[in-house]
């Protein structure tokens, strides 16, 4: 549909347009956009503490983005990343609390528990789609609600004794790193970012370099031709959802074992899973794109917390900017059209 250059230019232009329109909104509401953005930037990367917080924020975005993108490459729309993330979160914390093991075993086991829970949660819509052609969007949305209430129940009645939060996971199951914390003036940065980057590499490896990835991509583009070529379309649908869910579950584990170190009652969805949809879209559903888009989201969201204090611009502005960026990416045809016009005009 679009050529290589356009695929890169469209998100970049969308981001620039988003920022410009954000600036206009600031002017209209009586703020100085330069001050606003510099406050935002300062709040995101201005010193090592803020930088640490931003990196911590980027981590689950990468996983959520990878989850959405993975399913999408096989032609599936995984709206259930939010729920898969929540069950991954609780599963990792549970395993973290339930066992008493040396760190080399305990931490990987807890992380994998998160991945497995997310995978299981995505397996359900996968199998329903493969077997009965039930649309995955509907099932994943329902699974989100089931996850939310199930997790809350587990926190209150099973893992804790009628508390709002579980206990903290022991050091042997924690991603927290005193080293990274001191490095960043005691931010909440933890080891998760390295896992997230590794996840992006694994995403790329699976899809581009393995025979399994060949099948997944093929099914995503053309189910008929894939069937003709002897691929098992249904198995690929389930497989894709499971891997996607595993990425989401890992995102949850990062929160459970890293950022917070415990699980708690959610009165509403965390929103990270839904932001993952936007991250994947902005990142063009490729690994490097997802990482960059997650970084942008992390910077915007983290910077937004400091912006009102430093410049008076309300946090909501960032939501506007994000919404506009997504709007332009989603309506990329407009940009492609303008680009084409522009190219012709230049001749």
């Amino acid at each position, binding site marked *: 549909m679009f*050529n290589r250059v356009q695929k890169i230019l469209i998100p970049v232009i969308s981001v620039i347009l988003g920022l410009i329109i954000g600036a206009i909104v600031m002017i209209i509401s009586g703020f100085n956009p330069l001050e606003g953005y510099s406050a935002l930037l300062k709040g995101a990367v201005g010193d090592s503490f803020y930088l640490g917080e931003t990196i911590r924020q980027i981590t689950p975005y990468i996983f959520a983005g990878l989850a959405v993108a993975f399913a999408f490459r096989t032609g599936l729309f995984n709206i259930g990343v939010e729920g898969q993330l929540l069950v991954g979160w609780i599963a990792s914390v549970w395993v973290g609390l339930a066992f008493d093991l040396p760190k080399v075993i305990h931490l990987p086991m807890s992380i994998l528990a998160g991945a497995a829970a997310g995978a299981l949660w995505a397996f359900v819509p996968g199998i329903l789609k493969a077997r009965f052609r039930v649309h995955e969007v509907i099932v994943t949305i329902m699974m989100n609600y089931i996850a939310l209430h199930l997790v809350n129940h587990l926190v209150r009645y099973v893992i804790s004794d009628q508390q709002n939060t579980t206990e903290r996971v022991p050091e042997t199951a924690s991603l927290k790193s005193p080293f990274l914390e001191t490095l960043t003036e005691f931010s909440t940065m933890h080891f998760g970012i390295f896992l997230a980057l590794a996840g992006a590499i694994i995403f790329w490896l699976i899809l581009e*370099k*393995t*025979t*399994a*990835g*060949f099948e997944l*991509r*093929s099914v995503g*583009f*053309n189910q*008929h*031709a*894939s*069937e*003709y*070529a*002897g*691929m*098992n379309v249904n198995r690929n649908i389930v497989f894709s959802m499971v891997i996607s869910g595993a990425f989401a579950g890992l995102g949850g584990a990062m929160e459970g074992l890293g950022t917070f170190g415990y699980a708690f009652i959610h009165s509403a969805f965390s929103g990270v899973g839904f932001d993952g949809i936007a991250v994947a879209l902005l990142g063009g559903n490729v690994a490097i794109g997802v990482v960059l888009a997650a970084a942008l989201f992390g910077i915007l969201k983290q910077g937004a917390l400091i912006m009102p204090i430093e410049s008076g611009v309300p946090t909501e502005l960032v939501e506007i900017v994000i919404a506009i960026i997504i709007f332009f990416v989603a309506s990329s045809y407009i940009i492609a059209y303008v680009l*084409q016009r522009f190219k*012709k005009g230049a*001749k």
Partner: protein
Amino acid sequence: MEYVIEMLNIRKEFPGIVANDNITLQLKKGEIHALLGENGAGKSTLMNVLFGLYQPEQGEIKVKGKKVNITNPNIANDLGIGMVHQHFMLVDPFTVTENIVLGMEPKKGVTIDMKKAVKDVKEISDRYGLKVDPNAKIAEISVGMQQRVEILKTLYRGAEILIFDEPTAVLTPQEIKELTQIFKTLISEGKSIILITHKLKEIIEVCDRVTVIRKGVGIDTLDVEGTTPNELASLMVGREVLFRTEKKTAVPKEAVLEITKLNVKDARGVNAVKDLSITLRAGEIVGIAGVDGNGQSELIEAITGLRKISSGSIKLSGKELSSLKPRKITEAGIGHIPQDRHKHGLVLDFPIGENMVLQTYYQTPFSKMSMLNNKEINKKAKKLIAEFDVRTPSEYTEARALSGGNQQKAIIGREVDRDPDLLIAAQPTRGLDVGAIEFIHQRLIDQRDKGKAVLLLSFELDEIMNVSDRIAVIYEGNIIAIVDPKETTEQELGLLMAGSKRKEAGEDTHV
């Protein structure tokens, strides 16, 4: 001299390739003008430029002498230019009328005036002898009818100039005859037509003038009167073309494919293949002749595992296939050139390289320990591209960017190269130029001479008669006769295909 369309010195480039290089095409009012050229010569590209889908790098377009700038299909519509694409653009669950008025519905207040729409469509349909039922659903009408809906769509929008991109490639011989008649009516109503086709006979029969292009360059425009298919062919290919493929008599050996009492249901659950039995031997080509819709597709889908059978047996060299999955069937030694290259044959978004290993990507040397070996994949692709003359900038080019004929050559290359014991070729030369057809026929015959079995399905009697060693006539899901191409005529085949049984053949179908 009055030209309705003038495309002057058009140049259009794609990454790595000049698709149109300084091409000039002038269309007179009231003529049928053929555009002829090899696969990948740039015909579709040139027409897409005229229809506003592509912007040329150079050159100008004049409509009725006035210079115009066609930047999108809406402008083309406004200028009276309509295009019937090779791949139809219709909305399946909608009715004929809904499809036609889509985007310019007659209004009554704020609602669509469906009564008027139906009436208008009926009127145009009658005027041009299209015989389309305005209330039928697209999904329920034949390909030929769908094409007429596309024609109606352009007429409804007031087209004066109609572009047809390989309209006959998807039609049966009967439908082609009817289309020819429609062309004549259109011309008599003052329309002008540009026709892309690879069938030289059609050009001679219906066209007034022909413009030949070769590898993106305009070669010549000449009057059809006085030319011969041979002259046209050599103009377009740049060398002499033989029309009859030479072949030795077949020496059939042991049975390769044995089908007995096969029953298959179609998508609607109706029996499409009924108690069909046939045997194919090593070293022979069996052609299946029949009017479209007599169970051919279902038969092939059943053999290749894409459709469940209701009863009967399909054996490949003694091994029962009928309960196996497509992968196992492929591995058992069946190759399949599918009828619909975009639906089944290719993943259009994959590069040509990956398409060349669509069934073999998991085998050595293309895969090692579940990892793809791109070096080997691209090596294979390069070899096939060269061997089958697939015109593409490189093996990394997306299949979508290839011309229709070159996509087809890529599929044929892939299937023939796997050297299957049984090669099923469903309309293998659809959309190919005469040179490529000759080459593909030769490759099918080579497979036969190597001792493989070939099952050829084609709606072109020429092709069936030329290439097959035996012709099986299929009618209402059954093989009603098996004839020797050397001893039959097109007339006889035509009668058989229409269902008139031939006694001695009818009794002797299971050979």
